Structure formats: structure tokens, C-alpha cells
């Protein structure tokens, strides 16, 4: 939703680790995530809050458990905006080169 929040959220190794943990197994509780991290529960909650504000993590209540899910949609938007544009430009250059080289033999 907000690219600044996405980049800021990604600019921290613990938060990237949290995303990796959720990628490995989606829908974990705070307790489950804490098992893999060497830090206080409260700090983990804060990191998850920043990831949630950036819409990189979404949460669902199942009974009394709050489950955390990785939400890669903002990453896709960053990819569209910051990666694919340049890939396309490179493809365009290759296409021009190919036309130029192949055109000669026609």
C-alpha cells in the first residue's frame, strides 16, 4: 500500500527472518515464531506490528490464537514497479539488437 513502509519493514534482518519463517510455514502464532528467534516476545511483537503496518503480514484469529500469514502482494507491487520495468527495458534493447543483426541478412 505504501512503498516507504514496505522498504522500511524489509530493511531489518529480524523482520526478513520473520518473513522467511512464515514462508517456510504459513499461519504461525507469536509463540511459534518466538521459538526461532533469540529475542524478547515483546520485541517480536513490535517487529510483527511493523510488518503488519506494511501489509507484508496479515493476521487471522482462530479461536484464541492469532495466526500470522506472509502477504507477498506488496512485494509483487515493488517487483512490478522496480524490477520488471528494467527487465522490460533490457528486453527491448535485446529486441532492437536482434532486429538490427537479423535485419541485415534479410
Amino acid at each position, binding site marked *: 500500500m505504501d512503498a516507504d513502509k514496505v522498504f522500511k519493514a524489509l530493511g531489518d534482518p529480524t523482520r526478513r527472518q520473520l518473513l522467511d519463517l512464515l514462508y517456510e510455514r*504459513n499461519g504461525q502464532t507469536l509463540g511459534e515464531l518466538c521459538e526461532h528467534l533469540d529475542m524478547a516476545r515483546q520485541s517480536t511483537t513490535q517487529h510483527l506490528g511493523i510488518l503488519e503496518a506494511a501489509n507484508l503480514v496479515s493476521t487471522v484469529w482462530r479461536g484464541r490464537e492469532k495466526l500470522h*500469514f506472509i*502477504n507477498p*502482494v506488496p*512485494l509483487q507491487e515493488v517487483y*512490478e514497479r522496480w524490477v520488471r520495468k528494467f*527487465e522490460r527495458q533490457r528486453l527491448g534493447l535485446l529486441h532492437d539488437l536482434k532486429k538490427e543483426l537479423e535485419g541485415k541478412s534479410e
Partner: protein
Amino acid sequence: MNTTRKEKTSFVYVTYIRSTPEKVFEAITKPEVTRRYWGHENVSEWRPGADWQHVRTDAQRTVNLVGKVVEVAPPTRLVITWASPAQAADPDSISRVSFDIVPYDDMVRLTVTHEELEAGSGMATGIQHGWPIVLSSLKSLLETGQGIDVFAKPKSA
């Protein structure tokens, strides 16, 4: 884990779109809109119990997904079952997708919850790749009038 039931997995995807709930609901259920950002048409009468089909928008008109409509409450909620046509008879291969649409500031928050997927199945892998692209294409269409090419591949592929 018991041995008779296969392990299941679920995914929750969220996107915020500058649009109205009505337009987002329409974008999921109207074939002439879905084809513009999804490369497929979602075809159904959209009443509980009705069939729905996900039809590729090309000359072959291949049906790539099938299912039943479980719940329809325009413009806030839609629940469908989801399976590849070849596996539609196997209950283990039928998953469920809920679309929840709520106004959020001047935007709409669209949550797609995909549940009851067989862990590690081709379908689970496919939707993990697919949903972020489809949702970002939907957002792009509704906000800019232009979807993205959902079939685009890296040039090495």
C-alpha cells in the same frame, strides 16, 4: 497428524485498492472485467450451489479451474470452492477461496483467503505464485485502467 487425511495449508492475501467495494466485487465476478487483469473469465450465475468456471481468454477457451459457489453477498463477500478440472471429483483436492471486501479509509481492503489446500501439492505451489500477481494486476487495473500481463515470464524461461 493422522494418516487418512492429508496435511492442509492455507494462505491469506491482502491488498488495498483505491476503488469501491462494488467495483472490486464486479472485478471478481464479471467475465468482461476478469479477462482484463487475470487472462481468464470467471463464469457463473453467482448464486449458492451454482458452478463456476475459470476460462482462459484465448481461442482454446480452456477451463483451468472449476468449483461451486458457496456464499454470495455482494459487494462484501464471496466464497467459492476451487479445483483443477482433472481433480474436481477428489474431495482432498478441492480447496476453498473467500473474498472479503471492506471499505478502508478512501480505499477497499480485499482479503483473499485460500484454505483447505493440500500441503505441497501442485495447486498449493501454483496459487502461491499466482495470487500475488493476480491481485497486483487487479489493483493496477482498478487504479490505472491497466492490468499487468499475468502470463509474463522471465526471459530465461
